[in-house]
């Protein structure tokens, strides 16, 4: 069986500018693929190609084994960053509208919304808190039981419990056999994905599980009487240094380099595995 989504050597140029360069990407049923990258890395262009909104300049895009079309769009659930809901319709009216657009009979009012959202059915979307709006957008994207879900920054600005609840919904869809492609800016969230694809400058620079991507990458933690003194000396030595509680972290440096930069400043210097975020910067800066 062919993958739900497959980009093969996909390249997209806008005039002189290459937004996406020779990207290979697949999403299989039941897996959650996280697409990570800075602004301008090409994530949105990849999503637009999958949705069939733009074509490729070179290479191919296939959804369910065929080129993107209105037919494939039916089997796809999409939650854009802006949510794509109508502010001046109620939650239920939004769902009815979407059902009509997908050529489905609207679900009975009693079952259209998941239990936790029922109290908000008759509220205008614009009057609901952001976290609740996001859950409505999810319900809308899932209503036609899509085989593939595409989620663009699904949890931006949502508090931790709300985020956990959204991920339960995403996981529920993947357990039921749907494939999921999700973009996020939040590295902690990447651990929710079965597989990650990291993009920089339009190209894929790493792919695999978080552990595989971090590999043997390391950072150094420095604890000093005054973190500010340590910060100042490390910065002056040209090392990239970040705040870490009451100490600092120096990604991509060796303990010896750090010790040398600290000079006579008394400090505890410890080597630790890099975080995914630290590894991400190594990859992005190296590209």
């Amino acid at each position, binding site marked *: 069986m062919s993958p739900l989504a497959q980009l093969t050597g996909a390249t997209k140029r806008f005039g002189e500018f290459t937004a996406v360069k020779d990207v290979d990407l697949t999403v299989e049923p039941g897996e959650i693929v996280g697409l990570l990258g*800075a*602004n301008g890395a090409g994530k949105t262009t990849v999503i637009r190609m999958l949705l069939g909104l733009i074509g490729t300049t070179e290479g191919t895009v296939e959804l369910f084994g065929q080129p993107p079309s209105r037919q494939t769009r039916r089997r796809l659930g999409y939650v854009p960053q802006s949510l794509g809901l109508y502010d001046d319709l109620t939650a239920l009216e939004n769902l009815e509208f979407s059902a009509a657009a997908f050529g489905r009979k609207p679900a009975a009012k009693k079952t259209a919304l998941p239990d936790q959202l029922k109290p908000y059915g008759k509220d205008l979307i614009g009057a609901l808190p952001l976290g609740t709006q996001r859950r409505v957008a999810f319900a809308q994207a899932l209503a036609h039981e899509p085989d593939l879900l595409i989620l663009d920054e699904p949890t931006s600005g949502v508090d931790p*419990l709300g985020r956990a609840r959204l991920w339960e919904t995403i996981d529920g869809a993947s357990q039921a056999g749907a494939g999921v492609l999700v973009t996020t*800016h939040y*590295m902690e969230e990447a651990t929710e994905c079965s597989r990650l694809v990291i993009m920089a400058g339009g190209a894929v620079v790493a792919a695999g599980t978080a552990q595989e991507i971090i590999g043997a990458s390391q950072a150094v933690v420095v604890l000093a009487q005054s973190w500010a003194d340590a910060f100042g000396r490390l910065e002056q030595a040209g090392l990239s*240094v970040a705040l*870490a*509680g009451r100490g600092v972290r120096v990604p991509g440096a060796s303990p010896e380099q750090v010790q040398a930069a600290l000079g006579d400043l008394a400090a505890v210097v410890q080597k630790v595995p890099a975080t995914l975020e630290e590894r991400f910067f190594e990859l*992005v800066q190296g590209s």
Partner: protein
Amino acid sequence: MSWGADDLVVRYRRTVALDHVGVDLPAGQVTAVVGGDGAGKSTLLRCLAGAQAPLTGTVRRPGKEGVGYLPAGTGVYPDLTVTENLEFRATGYRMSREAARERAARYLDSAGLTAAADRLAGQLSGGMRCKLGVIAAMLPRPELLVLDEPTTGVDPVSRSGLWWLIARAAAEGCAVVLTTTYLDEAERCGSVLVLDEGKVLATGTSDEIIAAMPGALRSVPARPGDPRAWRRGGQWRVWDPDGTAGDIQADLQDAVTVAAIAREVRS
């Protein structure tokens, strides 16, 4: 005496936005304020910045010119260029032109904004605008820097630049307070204040807050629908309020999630 606030009460009509909230903001330290929608984070920051008067309670802050404030949004003028935004700020704070120029150049350079100096702020990407907002707030070398969600929706590369600026300000001796919905960011701060429905749920270092979490966490098979269970890192975990030993070592994100669950279960 350090900057901060004692026993603040703020009400909007019938809603109690802050219910006897206090916080200490030592110089040279970054303090994170975390909590869900409507917890009172922005209200607390507005009070600290002097943009809002509490009903009762005291705010300890330097005079107007000693406070740098970045309100939620970005706090920059979209119709001015990057340079004009910073010049305007410097004039407002009566900074010497040379000092302002020298500092602005250094911060713009470290934040990767030098090439954008003549662009209109309204045409910058979200991340660049946020960095400009923070630079503008820290330009006059405030003693107290108040930043409302400086990193929300900002991509990881810009976020790392923002964190460098924030650390730079604290290293220069400024007391920094900021709100965030990202708990790994809060963990980077020297001190954390957890707000919930206008009340202080917990305060201290990230380790102290984790240690104060009631009960224990256990890993369980999938349990959708259980209000005390949630999914994290591909595994399900449940909060046992009366448990003493669990198999999961909680972190700040767990502690804050548990606080939110405890409230949901109560109500």
